[in-house]
């Protein structure tokens, strides 16, 4: 599904990612943990094609294609989805309008006809129920006046409707209270499939109580300093990031 090799990335001539290696197979869930400023969002942005970053070395292959060559909207249409750490507001554009435009642009890319209006409404209402959201949110402007938690839930709603192949969740758990965290996690779990992979960026172990990862990677100072199974997250929780950061210094 995704293969990252020796990826190095600069922002404003400062090296942020210093040689990332990561292999993700279909159906797997990978958690990426690490302290603030370690480069987690940078990695998410690089995978989704945000401007302002310079790849100075390495490669990223997605479904056999060079991901870094693709325009961001092409990546999206090919199934790469980023749930943003800080979702933006778009005044005047209703949620449901954005959803429909997004879904249709993806369908068009795959030579499918535009979604039928009734089918679309049924689909959207289904997913709204799944995420225990109020239908009113559909008709409000994208993220405008939403609370932090509502914005995050809205990201997952979009993910559930667009049905991507590679889901990157950048700190979706931060800003969620415990009930919301449960609902969002159930939403994510319901999307688990043999041909769908997840990259979950998080600070905290608590999300991983609800969504069990196959692998956990610790990112520090732009490098993956430790990888392991789900138990690594527990160990981290107990010992803190200094434990792995120190272990890296020891290498």
């Amino acid at each position, binding site marked *: 599904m995704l293969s990252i090799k020796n990826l190095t990335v600069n922002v404003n001539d400062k090296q942020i990612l210093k040689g990332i290696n990561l292999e993700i197979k279909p159906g797997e869930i990978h958690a990426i943990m690490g302290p603030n400023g370690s480069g987690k969002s940078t990695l998410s942005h690089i995978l*989704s*094609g*945000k*401007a*302002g*970053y310079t790849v100075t070395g390495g490669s990223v292959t997605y479904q056999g294609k060079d991901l870094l060559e693709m*325009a*961001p*909207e092409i*990546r*999206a*249409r090919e199934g790469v*989805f*980023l749930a*943003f750490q800080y*979702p*933006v507001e*778009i*005044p*005047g*554009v*209703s*949620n*449901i*309008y*954005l959803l*429909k*435009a*997004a*879904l249709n*642009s*993806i369908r068009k*890319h795959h030579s499918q006809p535009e979604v039928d*209006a009734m089918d*679309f*409404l049924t689909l959207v209402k289904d997913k709204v129920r799944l995420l225990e959201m109020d239908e009113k949110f*559909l*008709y409000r*402007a994208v993220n405008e006046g939403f609370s932090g938690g509502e914005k995050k839930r809205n990201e997952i709603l*979009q993910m559930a409707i*667009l049905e991507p192949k590679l889901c990157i969740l950048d700190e979706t758990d931060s800003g969620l209270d415990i009930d919301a965290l449960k609902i969002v996690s159930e939403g994510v779990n319901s999307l688990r499939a043999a041909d769908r992979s997840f990259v979950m960026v998080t600070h905290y172990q608590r999300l991983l109580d609800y969504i069990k990862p196959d692998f956990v990677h610790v990112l520090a100072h732009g490098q993956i300093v430790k990888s392991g199974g789900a138990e690594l997250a527990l160990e981290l929780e107990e010992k803190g990031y200094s434990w792995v950061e120190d272990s890296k210094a020891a290498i």
Partner: protein
Amino acid sequence: MSASAQEINNLINQEYKQGFVTELETDTFPIGLDEDVIHKLSKVKNEPEFMLEYRLKAFRHWQTMKSPEWAFVKFDPIDYQAISYYSAPKRKEDGPKSLDEIDPQVLEAYKKLGIPLDEQERLAGIAVDAVFDSVSVATTFKGKLKDAGVIFCPISEALREHPELIKEYLGSVVPHTDNYFAALNAAVFTDGSFVYIPKGVRCPMELSTYFRINAANTGQFERTLIIADEGSHVSYLEGCTAPMRDENQLHAAVVELVAMKDATIKYSTVQNWYPGDKNGLGGIYNFVTKRADCRGDNSKVSWTQVETGSAITWKYPSCVLTGDNAVGEFYSVALTNNYQQADTGTKMIHIGKNTRSTIVSKGISAGKAQNTYRGLVKVLKSAENARNYTQCDSLLVGDQCGAHTFPYIEVKQPSAQVEHEATTSKISEDQLFFCQQRGLSAEDAVSMIVNGFCKEVFKELPMEFAVEAQALLGLSLEGSVG
């Protein structure tokens, strides 16, 4: 990677689809302007004597005036002697026009613009007056409107057939002395629409006029007059397009609306004159005086404009709220790109008691364009309990364009309430990237964000015109869901 700010600038650069020229045989005056030209013009239009006198009076006054310089626009002085003041597709003979007599090329031009004029194809529920250069070439559904007592015809026809209405109302809202371009228009106006809605009549269909400039080296001097008698109701829309040319062309219009007691006029404009090329070459100078007199108690006039074209737009559709409880509204979207300049806004003059006005202005500026909102809210001593609400938002696309806001407020009545809100925002790269990450192209994303920004104004456009507005606008309206 996602689009940079510079790239965004290019995105609303859409091809100007109405830029074609129709090859025709025409009757065109030689260039130049003097009293002889005005005599000739009045003669070719077969006008009554009083019109000629009116024109000459206006012309003499215009010669004493200077071109205004207060607007936030820059252009070289216009050589009024280098313009032809009349150009019309050749017709075999005078007399009542039927569609068969219209040059098929002209019909074809309108068809290409999405406004079929022939019987079978014409737009259902919408009567169209088609003004081509200096003449109206066709008016549809005249018979059906006549049955309802509604007069909808070219103004040049109204001069001949309804001189009593013309004498009473023409120049009663915008006098020939009003301003430089209004004086010029009064002297040389050629065609436009005339509407009269009798007492108590709700106009059975939407009325619209399509202004097309085709001939080179001509000016188009539109004159429109709409009278809504007591208790009547009418909705009117105008659309405008022109060929792509390197020379600037002048469209100097005067539009007068009169709303009597309990009458309502809804006037919508989709202005898509040729804006000039990327480097600012060519384009229409759109210098327009539009004013409504809400003469009767409880009358209402609503201006909605979507201005995307023209090299320069200089336009302030206004309401004089004379009657008690009169309502004036102004909803505006003005989009400028490349080197386009727009100085547009409104004047709301409160005279009657309990008069109310609403102003919603959305200015979008991209490329190197300048976009200015200029508005006056004036409350006279007599206007007890007058209210105004003004909301004025600017959206910048890129960082080489400008948005300016000049609100003027004069209040002489202490019980009046005047509110003004203004915002300026930019399409952020984060917004754009977010949309692209959801699968939209940068172009669709900009268009969606701009449409979202304009939503409050677009929803004021009559439903029936949505499709045409879309065709003329080049920007897609937000869809039926949400």
